[in-house]
């Protein structure tokens, strides 16, 4: 596979986990805005870590087995995508286990994430309410 080796591994992760969304209907892709918000801390911390590791010489990437697109700091584009793809697969796994077992993951199940017009209106209004009531959620 040569230069596509790393990219193919990432694609493989997405293909293997796709049935969780398409068949089991865990609705992670459907909640993509939430996912992007949730992945942000991980993405920032771990990309920073990799940039530090490259600068310090802790590890290096094969020029032959990556596409050769290096972003500032010398990080291969596949490595940046890794920190989005692997978290996505992890969330799919968590939601799948939650759906199959019914076990508590610490947040109320959402009865309908498709956001019909009424629910969407409520969400916009209620998000502001959630800010003011934030301290109450800690329990």
């Amino acid at each position, binding site marked *: 596979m040569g230069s596509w080796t790393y990219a193919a591994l990432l694609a493989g992760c997405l293909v293997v986990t796709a049935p969780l969304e398409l068949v089991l209907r865990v609705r992670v892709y459907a909640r993509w805005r939430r996912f992007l918000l949730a992945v942000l801390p991980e993405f920032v911390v771990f990309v920073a870590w990799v940039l530090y590791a490259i600068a310090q010489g802790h590890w290096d990437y094969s020029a032959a087995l990556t596409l050769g697109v290096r972003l500032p700091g010398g990080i291969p584009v596949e490595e940046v995508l890794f920190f989005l793809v692997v978290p996505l697969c992890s969330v799919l796994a968590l939601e799948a286990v939650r759906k199959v077992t019914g076990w508590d993951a610490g947040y109320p199940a959402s009865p309908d994430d498709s956001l019909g017009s009424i629910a969407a209106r409520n969400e916009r209004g209620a998000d502001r309410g959630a800010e003011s009531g934030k301290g109450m959620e800690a*329990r």
Partner: protein
Amino acid sequence: MSYSALAVLAVIGVLVVDLAVYRTRMVTRPVFWVAYAIVIVFQLLMNGVLTGLDVVVYDPDAIWGPRLAYAPVEDLLFGFAMVTLTLASWAAVNRRANTARRRGLDTDTRRSSTR
């Protein structure tokens, strides 16, 4: 700081975030550990290919030395920190959004009943 030291720090850091900052307490939940058991199987596979084929090459001076499925054992700590931070954040975002949605629905019911 070596990769080893950073990996240990990262694990401590995410435990603090999960238990004390978000208070999502994912590491206390069976649902998390079953999901993590599934994730770690795929991590060992993917990371084994990445390190076995030398897509990623480590400086021997930055790691402890022992390897599992070609990858330095530090990668297990790295992976745990990464997955746990992601899932705790996902739980925190959903806790906020779903709780807000329920409150929103309640509010709507009260409003329409006064009309």
